[in-house]
């Protein structure tokens, strides 16, 4: 899988909802076997990016106006969502979006909807239960009754059931205790390293995302504001100021969420950084 090439390549992506532009000329790449983070505050266009890749835009009356999205060198733009899953893209949606009335096992099996190899599906189920061992006793529980952390594990496990080459996680940390979020990111790293699955993490929790990713992008108001290796961005004063709570020390905090990045520099009487380009 990790042949040095690109897994996902997005070029010049422009997405509109009605007359409103949500993404403007966005270029993002995920190397094969890479771990990439996209950071940004609310309204930066992060979820729109996920919907564009997974072809769910039409459910929200959005459409791609320009640009290309390629997976493993082949265009997936305009394909239907089942075909995109079959092509190797799986997602952990924002807010988990489990099937609340289905059991944990049934939720996991739904993740294998694109597959027809029965024994392979059983094998993937078993792999998942080894990875998320605390789900094993909960297999026949109704998913809607699990704790938030357990639900997020089911959501990740469900996505893995399709044996994706690219796993997209949208706001994995949202609403979960820091300890659980840390554990989930560790598991993502493990999946990335042992299975070679490329990972694209969309996050508000910048410190965690930068800690685990190789490369990162900062999205703001629908544009890519910055890109670089995770280490470069961690060391960037503006990223520290806007997304890491000013300290530079990568500790888990919701400061980045609570202080909208756009208003922060203005409080100090500075010009917004976007305006200079």
């Amino acid at each position, binding site marked *: 899988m990790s042949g040095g090439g690109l897994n996902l390549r997005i070029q010049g992506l422009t997405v509109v909802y009605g007359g409103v532009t949500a993404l403007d000329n966005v270029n993002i790449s995920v190397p094969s076997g890479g771990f990439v983070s996209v950071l940004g505050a609310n309204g930066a266009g992060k979820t729109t990016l996920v919907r564009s890749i*997974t072809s*769910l835009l039409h*459910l929200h009356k959005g459409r791609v106006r320009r640009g290309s999205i390629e997976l493993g060198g082949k265009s997936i733009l305009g394909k*239907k*969502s*089942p075909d*995109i*899953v*079959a092509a190797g893209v799986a*997602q952990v*949606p924002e807010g988990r*979006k*489990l*099937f*609340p*009335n*289905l059991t944990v096992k*049934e939720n996991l*099996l*739904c*993740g294998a*909807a*694109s597959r027809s190899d029965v024994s392979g599906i059983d094998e993937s189920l078993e792999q998942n239960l080894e990875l998320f061992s605390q789900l094993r006793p909960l297999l026949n529980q*109704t998913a*809607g*009754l*699990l704790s*938030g952390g357990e*639900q997020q594990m089911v959501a990740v496990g*469900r*996505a893995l059931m*399709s044996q994706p080459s690219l796993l997209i996680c949208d706001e994995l940390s949202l*609403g979960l205790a820091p300890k659980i979020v840390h554990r989930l990111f560790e598991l993502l790293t493990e999946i990335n390293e042992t299975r070679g699955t490329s990972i694209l993490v969309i996050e508000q929790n910048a410190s965690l995302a930068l800690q685990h990713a190789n490369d990162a992008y900062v999205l703001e108001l629908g544009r890519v504001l910055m890109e670089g290796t995770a280490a470069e961005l961690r060391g960037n004063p503006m990223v520290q100021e806007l997304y890491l709570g000013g300290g530079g020390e990568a500790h888990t905090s919701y400061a980045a969420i609570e202080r909208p990045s756009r208003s922060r520099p203005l409080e100090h009487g500075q010009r917004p950084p976007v305006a200079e380009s």
Partner: protein
Amino acid sequence: MLLAFGNFTADPSVNLQLLIGGLALGAIYAVVALGFVLVYKSTDVLNLAHGEFLMLGAYFALTFLISENLNFFLGVFVLLLVMLVFGLLVHYGIMRRMVGQGFFAIVLITLGIATIIRALLLIFYGPTERARLDLLPQGSFEVGGATVRHVDLIIFAVVAACVLLFFLFFKYTRLGLHMRAVADDIEAAAAMGIDPDKVYAMTWAAAMVMAGVGGLLFGHVTGAIDRSIEAIGLRAFPAAVVGGLTSLGGSIVGGLVVGVIEQFANGHLGTKWREPVAFSVMFVVLLVRPTGLWGRKDLERV
């Protein structure tokens, strides 16, 4: 005063008779309500054409089992196959284009479908009423002073078998699982690679097949087959609502409860009280428990 309503009696054999008749009627309501609830739960469409679907089933039964005089089992197979094709036509021809449109626009579309079916039946079958179906055994036997018709027993058994098949299908097949997933969260289902379009198509096909079974059964107990039997769709409405519009199991119990209550109202109070009592039950249930007896709000932890 009460006597003015009719003749109340404590005679157990009369009450047993009413119970048996009520259960048979209720079983048919249950089948109708099941198809109705299936569509509502899976596609979020309040299908007001379900009574017409059943009527279509009854008329097709006339064609394949009486006019064409096919072997009974072959005829039933053809009937259900044709109903399945009609279900797919409803989805791919009409409902597919309405996905994502407003709730009431879609309800009105189903009313339009109902009108089209009534018109087509008038064109192809003419206005004259037909004798009811008589393919099931017509005999009867006595139990505790009550007469049990074979046909009622068969109806009950067929409905029970259908319900069992239905539950096994939903619980243990991939398609059944995907249908429940789409009912829970269509966007998440699409994100997992489940094609909602296919699931919807299968839902309409399944509802149509259920209506075929219902039409075949109801065709045996109705007075005559004409274009007024679509009213059973409306009559099964209390059954679906009492059970809770989102509960397949509830629609079965709802059907039986409403059928029995109707028969008791019919026997003790007179025919004119059948519908008022059935709908009163629906009102009371809605007032006390708006989600119906078994309907529930989706589990969700935020």
